[in-house]
């Protein structure tokens, strides 16, 4: 006699019912990106892992999946949002004191194998989902070998988390490289694509894990550059995106090949995700 065990995740409300969170702080990062710090109205902070996302809900407007960009060490939940559509624009317009619905956290986490060297490559808004991973590494610095960040942005004005970047750059045990596509002549830093420093990055391909986040096209070129350096595809972790509606594996939208991003991702190895990225319109 067969039985199918069925579970509903421990939660106060249903899996599809958001919980109200208040906007505590609103910080403008760039011309189109804001970071919101959120606290649950009725208590009960969530405990996200770096790489996970939540579904942010505005009544009557809609709901979107946004990666957690802060709060994985027990502090307030932080989300860094780019205003690109109706919902994200409305989220970016929220003022402190206003309320937003939150479901989650959902998805899986960035792999941080102990003893590994870590190379973090971020493009544009891709730095946001990686910030909690970087913070987790730096909080437990002795567990890892060499740690490097390569961050590419379109222009200096699009650089996120300037304060953190300065702090990280100040550390002797963390190599930080920032590059932009184009800059006014006052820019003293590097200009070029985020793939440029990769051929010369000092890392041992046998002992390194790479964390890559950004638009798919950027992920492909970065992964190729890393593999040119003999880094195996299994040791390259990437964060993937697709249209999402429920975030809990019930609506079918976030399918990526044989997986559901909300359940089996958003973090995949390039060994898995690479072949999918090669198929047009998969």
């Amino acid at each position, binding site marked *: 006699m067969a039985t199918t065990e069925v579970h509903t995740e421990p939660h106060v409300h249903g899996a599809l019912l958001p919980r109200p969170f208040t906007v505590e702080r609103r910080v403008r990062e760039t011309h189109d990106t804001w970071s919101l710090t959120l606290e649950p109205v009725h208590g009960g902070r969530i405990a996200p892992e770096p790489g996970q996302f939540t579904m942010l809900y505005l009544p009557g407007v809609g709901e979107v999946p946004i990666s957690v960009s802060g709060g994985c060490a027990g502090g307030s939940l932080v989300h860094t949002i780019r205003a690109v559509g109706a919902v994200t624009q409305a989220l970016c317009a929220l003022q402190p004191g206003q309320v937003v619905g939150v479901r989650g956290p959902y998805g899986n986490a960035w792999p941080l194998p102990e003893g590994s060297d870590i190379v973090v490559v971020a493009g544009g808004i891709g730095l946001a989902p990686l910030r909690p991973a970087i913070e987790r590494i730096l909080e437990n610095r002795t567990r890892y070998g060499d740690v490097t960040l390569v961050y590419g942005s379109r222009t200096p004005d699009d650089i996120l988390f300037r304060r953190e970047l300065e702090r990280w750059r100040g550390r002797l045990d963390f190599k930080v490289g920032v590059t932009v596509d184009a800059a006014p002549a006052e820019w003293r830093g590097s200009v070029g694509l985020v793939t440029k420093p990769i051929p010369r990055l000092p890392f041992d391909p046998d002992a390194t894990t790479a964390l890559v986040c950004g638009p798919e096209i950027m992920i492909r070129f970065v992964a190729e550059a890393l593999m040119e350096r003999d880094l195996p595809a299994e040791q390259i972790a990437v964060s993937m995106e697709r249209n999402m509606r429920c975030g809990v594996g019930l609506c079918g939208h976030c*399918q990526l090949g044989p997986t559901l991003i909300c359940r089996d991702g958003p973090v995949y190895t390039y060994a898995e995700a690479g072949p999918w990225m090669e198929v047009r319109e998969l």
Partner: protein
Amino acid sequence: MAHRLASLLSDRFEGGTPLTTTELIARETARTSDARVLVPEALEDLLTALHDRGYRVLGPQLRAGTIVYGELTRAADLPTGWTAEQEPGHYRLARRNDEARFGYTPGPHSWKQELFPARVRLFSSKRTGADLELTEEPLDERPTALVGVRACEVAAIRIQDRVFLGGRFADRDYAARRRELFVVAVDCGEPAATCFCDSVGAGPSAEHDFDLRLTELLDGEHRLLAVAGSAAGAELLGALPARAASDDDLAAADQLREQARATMRAGAELQVEGLHDLLVENPEHPRWDDVAKRCLGCANCTLVCPTCFCSSVEDVADLTGTEAERFRVWDSCFSVKYSELHGGSVRTSTKSRYRQWLTHKLGTWQDQFGELGCVGCGRCITWCPAGIDLREEVNALQEVQAQ
């Protein structure tokens, strides 16, 4: 006892204490030793018995030139003496020369419209000062009896159970509608040209997951063989006017099923062997371009498919923006909006959307849910305005492969 959720869904909420819920779907195999025989008139007694036990009864009836599912108040409302002629892109009702109550193959309706309705309110919200009150929609837990559930439909319900209840997060609306479900299954003796349930192991007869199973016999005496598949089914059967089944009755039922299998085998079957890899490993097969020329992207197939489960959400607010509601609505991977991302869509071409649907239904569904997503009911073939037959598409994919 078939698909009755033997549960344990206790809805405790103690101010902040998380509630853990476990549901079990138990299955039992039908016990043919307790087979009984009913005269067709006894179907009225069956409906009465169900109503007496507090069930809302749904079943097939004629409407708008087809056989649909709706509230069944009297046995006289059954599509007695009707059958359906089904071909790719073709459906016509036709009169039979007998009084068969269940002598038809399923129409555009499937039971997902009851268990997974096209539009369901999930919750409503109200802004109150600095707070947001979110109220979950009360659940529909009315005991419901489904009469005339084909083997393919029993299989489809089981497949949707896996999707909606078998993962880390369960769908509470589906769970509620599913909890007090009484299933009266019906065997098929005359599959349509579009039927292929046997090639996917979903028919022509349900082996489990029902409360009662009827096999309508039309040779000689018009009668219905009935077996119980659950304690509730046995209890109900015991209350009906019926005689014990003879060996002849049992043999006649077996023969009917054999006949059904033979009919399907003589027609177009779905080649299930190696199906997953065939689809997953051939995203650039020229056949996809070929079918894309014929496919209209109309989404009919996903609407009539009894296992398609994709949904989207609709958010509506009042003019002041104080009160809002969220609805879950059916969605289809054939819609371009379905794969919208950052202002564009991942799948814009018809080719990519058809490929997604078929590869999912017959291939990656297995990766995601551990079983095939198709029950061989053939609805997608019948209701496709272009008459696209996925059995033919799969064969074409295989043929060029073999070259």
